[in-house]
């Protein structure tokens, strides 16, 4: 007959056992989340639970913002008005030429029988907050799947690309900034059309143009814009400006540091661009090989 303590002393499993159980559960979740993305359902449920808390937590700063807006002085408003007027003048002169250019462009495209570029529908969103997590550079915007936001959409501000929607919840969405260490953006150099992929620099708030050959034609102050060949970003949006180039003979690649063109850490209002539809289907594996095969025969000089 086994000895059992009376039930009123029972305290359940020992703390070490509980610790082991919950730690292994946490590790399991982390692996599922990081490697396989199976934990999205769990995350969505928890995010739904946390959503009311987040809204309440944001209320004080929103209130403060509203109050400071109310007390904006007349001088500031007047100055802003003047600035806007002068901007409008510049814009008006641009607009006059734009009409002519658009017509000309349409005709040229028609001549080339190129596909018409349709302006994408866009949604204006506001950045709610930046994640507390110091490991990632992500922001949360106030539009979600309810407003037609989808994962993978590009997010821009008035100057250039900010990032990409990575997770969508019913009322909010998470945007990974282009400066996040895990984020890559396909770009090209405006000056010569050289294509490259730009990598986020993480905590420093910079970008790296990695895996670009040491002799590649990149200069300081070159503007990098989206190349648009991925179908995610529309072509021609400013992404970054080259600030520093280190060419080391010991390395195959140049170390090129850039700063983002858009205010990735400043603006509140952003624009979420819808994904382009009607792209031609990707070639099949077999076809792809036969297409890439002749490429190797090309002389080494022809890079692009």
């Amino acid at each position, binding site marked *: 007959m086994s000895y059992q303590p009376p039930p009123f002393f029972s305290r359940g499993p020992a703390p070490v056992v509980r610790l082991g159980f919950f730690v292994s559960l946490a590790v399991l979740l982390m692996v599922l989340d990081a490697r396989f993305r199976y934990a999205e359902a769990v995350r969505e449920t928890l995010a739904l639970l946390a959503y009311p808390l987040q809204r309440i937590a944001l209320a004080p700063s929103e209130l403060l913002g509203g109050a400071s807006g109310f007390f904006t002085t007349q001088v500031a408003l007047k100055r802003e008005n003047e600035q806007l007027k002068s901007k409008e003048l510049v814009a008006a002169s641009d607009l006059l030429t734009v009409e002519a250019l658009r017509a000309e462009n349409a005709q040229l495209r028609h001549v080339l029988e190129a596909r018409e570029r349709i302006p994408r529908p866009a949604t204006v969103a506001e950045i709610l907050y930046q994640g*507390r997590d110091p490991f990632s550079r992500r922001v949360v915007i106030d539009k979600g799947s309810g407003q037609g936001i989808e994962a993978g959409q590009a997010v821009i501000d008035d100057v250039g690309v900010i990032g990409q929607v990575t997770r969508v919840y019913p009322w909010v969405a998470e945007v990974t900034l282009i400066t996040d260490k895990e984020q890559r953006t396909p770009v090209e150099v405006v000056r010569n059309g050289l294509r490259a992929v730009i990598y986020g620099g993480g905590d420093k708030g910079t970008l790296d143009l990695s895996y670009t050959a040491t002799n590649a034609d990149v200069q300081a102050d070159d503007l990098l814009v989206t190349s648009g060949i991925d179908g995610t970003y529309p072509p021609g949006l400013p992404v970054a400006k080259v600030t520093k180039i280190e060419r080391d003979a010991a390395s195959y690649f140049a170390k090129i540091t850039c700063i983002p063109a858009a205010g990735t850490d400043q603006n509140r209002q952003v624009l979420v661009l819808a994904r382009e539809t009607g792209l031609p289907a990707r070639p099949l594996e077999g076809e792809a090989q036969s297409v890439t095969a002749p490429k190797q025969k090309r002389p080494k000089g022809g890079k692009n």
Partner: protein
Amino acid sequence: MAYFEQPQRILLPVNVGYMALTVVLALLFNLMPWHDLVGVPDMVALVLAFWCVHQPRKMGIGAAWFVGLMMDAGNGALLGQHAFGYAFLAFGAISLHRRILWFSQWQQAAHVLILLLVCQALMLAVGMIAGSPFPGIGYFAGSLVAAALWPIASFVLLLPQRRPDSIDENRPI
């Protein structure tokens, strides 16, 4: 020791609803938009550690784990990162709960500081294994601030359990 020098208050039994409320308020504090401010204390860790020390039978590793998951989901962090750290924090606090309360407030805070730093170091290790960069030494400043808040936290969190200070002449206690 301080335990014998100071008069000890006999506290009322704790209200579980109040415990839950304090944890929710701490979550609210953590979810506020702090941006990149250095030294913002992790209130949730502090409150969890407090209840694990004072009420180890009502607050446990499982609850801390779940609150950690809420933090992860709210922050968009790696799911399980805070849950992992908070589970260890709760375990440490529960293991030390018989010892900690014998010390004075500031000595208790020193114990809690160690627990919070270990919790943060574990979360940092997990983050770095997952491929994140080192966020800088300022990352640990939050724990120092949180530990400095321990005496205030113990006053505020025990407030509803205190009896009124009116002295009854007819009663010995």
